[in-house]
């Protein structure tokens, strides 16, 4: 599992929710933006990615596009967790290959429900 968000607060909250939910996805790794995520993925094998959209250096849409174009990662499910609530952004992410979308603010139950439907 990889959590990608420029906010340390959101990474901490998602980390806690995933640990409490006892979701069997192995170790939880964290990255602060798309560039950091690509670096982490070189050394860590992950089964699911939760990614923000608005981030410095490389945003979530660019990260999603790069991962879906790479044979090594294109089968890894990616869920966008973001303040971006516009229908256009949701559609763009889903068309690019995201398997789900959770809008901030979220509840722990919303995250668990979304992941239960994917795993």
């Amino acid at each position, binding site marked *: 599992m990889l959590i990608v968000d*420029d*906010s*340390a*607060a*959101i990474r*901490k*909250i998602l980390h*806690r929710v995933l640990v409490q939910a006892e979701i069997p996805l192995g170790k939880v790794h964290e990255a602060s933006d798309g560039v950091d995520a690509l670096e982490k993925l070189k050394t860590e094998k992950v089964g699911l990615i939760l990614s923000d959209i*608005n*981030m*410095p250096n490389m945003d979530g849409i660019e990260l999603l596009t790069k991962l879906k174009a790479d044979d090594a990662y294109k089968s890894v499910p990616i869920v966008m967790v973001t*303040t*971006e*609530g*516009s229908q*256009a952004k949701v559609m763009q992410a889903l068309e690019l290959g995201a398997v789900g979308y959770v809008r*901030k*603010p*979220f*509840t722990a139950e919303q995250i668990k429900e979304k992941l239960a439907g994917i795993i």
Partner: protein
Amino acid sequence: MIDRISSEEIAAAIRTASQELFSTMLQLPLEDSPFYEETSEPESIDGVVALVGIAGSWTGTGRIACSPHFACRLAGALLMQPYESVNEDVLDAVAEVSNMIIGSVKTIFEEKLGPLALSIPTVIFGRNYRTRSSGVPKWTVVPFRTDGDTWNISFCVIPTKTSGQHIARPDVVLAV
């Protein structure tokens, strides 16, 4: 074509966005007071201010201002651990709170105004300073009360004059 957003609409969007966050991720009480318009330079601030910019066919800024004590309360509620003083965790939590509230306000207005972009939040903590957005005629300010703490959210949004040329300029911070 819409040429202005009223203060009533802005205040309603701020209240909706704030109530959503406070009832889900923060679980803190939230009591709002009547909004007012701020046309002159705001008073100098002692405490924490978070700024988030809006860009696109409309340009604007959202601003959350609170005391150091309330910033610690926000961080404690969000991260589920107590904070006695403002540190990096607290500033990051206030930044994320502002990002979620102003992001929700942006989403509400996108239905009317079309796609808008959100900047990454900027947080300032200090004493005796002012923030100013050049070219903005007025802010809509919604005061809130959470138990004994008072704090507020301000928002301004105006049409972008021409493609690539904004009326509003970036926020500046003045030490006074």
